[in-house]
């Protein structure tokens, strides 16, 4: 009985220690000068870059031995987390808006646009709709009877681009009460994959990742939305190496294989 109690206590306290020891290591790492290589870094990334960053961080860890912790969410959510004191070394935003917002917080050491994306109209794979070209002649509101899945335009860049595009064609006001807002672009994609809405607007790279679960009906014409430009930012000296890695040709190649267009 006593043995058991002691064992339990040891197990519990060691797990507590390991958790808090992690916290300590992190805070002391940020105090040391930049020349010391960190053992791990934290990257805040736009949800649409989740998969490509999985590949990139694995590659980076293999090369440098530095572990990368990732926190994928909508760019707006991440900006908000950074504003409230979340500690990250690198931040990837899917729009200029949230990068500017973060820059205004005074925590960005360096930032740069680095890849581009496109906006597509998608439907579940069993859709009766055929691929078509979106023009001002399209009767968009009568394409579907239920809701359309997009990211919440208030904080999800993909949702904001979608809102811009729909507004450009004068459709947004007609369908604004039929929008099903999601917490990030991947959640918007998942809703269409599940067949819960007839249509959705996501990035081309998301639709590609989804494979045959969704059908791409159309690409939104470039002039209908602000160019989709991703930005990455270095927030700490420890983040510099990974930031440079994101801008490297190697990373560009991987981004390209996921459907992004590198601009560097």
């Amino acid at each position, binding site marked *: 009985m006593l043995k058991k109690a002691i064992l339990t206590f040891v197990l519990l306290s060691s797990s507590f220690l390991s958790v808090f020891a992690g916290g300590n290591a992190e805070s002391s790492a940020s105090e040391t000068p930049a020349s010391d290589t960190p053992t791990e870094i934290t990257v805040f990334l736009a949800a649409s870059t989740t998969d490509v960053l999985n590949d990139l961080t694995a590659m980076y860890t293999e090369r440098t031995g530095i572990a990368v912790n990732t926190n994928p969410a*909508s760019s*707006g*959510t991440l*900006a*908000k987390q950074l*504003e409230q004191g979340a500690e990250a070394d690198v931040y990837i935003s899917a729009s200029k808006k949230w990068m500017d*917002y973060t820059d205004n917080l005074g925590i960005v050491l360096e930032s740069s646009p680095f890849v581009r994306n496109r906006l597509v109209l998608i439907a579940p794979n069993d859709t009766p709709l055929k691929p078509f070209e979106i023009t001002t002649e399209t009767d968009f509101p009568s394409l579907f009877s*239920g*809701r359309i899945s997009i990211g*919440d335009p*208030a*904080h999800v860049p993909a949702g904001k681009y979608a809102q811009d595009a729909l507004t450009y064609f004068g459709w947004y006001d007609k369908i604004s009460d039929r929008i*099903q*807002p*999601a*917490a990030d672009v991947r959640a918007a994609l998942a*809703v269409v994959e*599940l*067949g*819960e*809405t007839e249509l959705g607007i996501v990035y081309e790279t998301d639709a590609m990742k989804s494979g045959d679960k969704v059908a791409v009906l159309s690409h939104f014409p470039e002039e209908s939305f602000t160019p989709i430009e991703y930005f990455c930012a270095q927030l700490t000296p420890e983040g510099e190496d990974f930031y440079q890695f994101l801008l490297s040709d190697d990373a560009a190649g991987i981004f390209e294989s996921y459907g992004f267009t590198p601009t560097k």
Partner: protein
Amino acid sequence: MNGPEITDAIVLSIKIGLLATIINIPLAMITAYLLARFEFGGKAILDGLINLPLVMPPVTTGYLLLFILGKRGFIGAYLFSWFGIRIAFTTAAAVIASMVVSFPLVARSIRISMEMLDKKMENAAMTLGAGKLAVFFRVTLPLILPGVINGAVLGFARSLGEFGATMTFAGNIRGETRTIPLSVYSLLQIPGKEKDAGILVIISIVISFAAMFLSSAFGRKMTRKGKDVYGPSV
């Protein structure tokens, strides 16, 4: 500007909470009755299944619901193709999510009061010629009423706080499924909306407090009434 959004969330939360509770009460009474009075095969499994949402992460509960009742779920697919009924991502889904997560609390509270009830009371009524229904409505129900009310309040409070299952199964649609917690969450994603979120936080504290206060006041009244009616004879 955000006034309507806040009002929408409050009205919707109360509506969903009330609906979930009202539908849950009779279901919970039947379940509690079965569990408190009968021994049958698979009783432990039924008990476990009912209590599962109490300990399961709500997001996984929501995912299971989506898996079952979604448009491509294994029941939801038939509902849609046969009747054209779509449940996921509607107010109905929010009600169902709230029902499932709050059901264990309602059933548990009713079951405890049923197990504590003195069966002699019911037997006495029957020897005096009361039918089964009359016994239930005039003896059993009044005696377990404090437990029912307590369960209802706990269930309502749990519904008001429901977030994970609702987010997964019902989405975050303003005026349809964006309840107080989802609204607070959404407002906190947008820089500069802390004030609106704060207002909602205060309102939800007030609603929860009022519910608890009402239930304890009602509970006291019921116990007193119970003593007046049945006290001296026991």
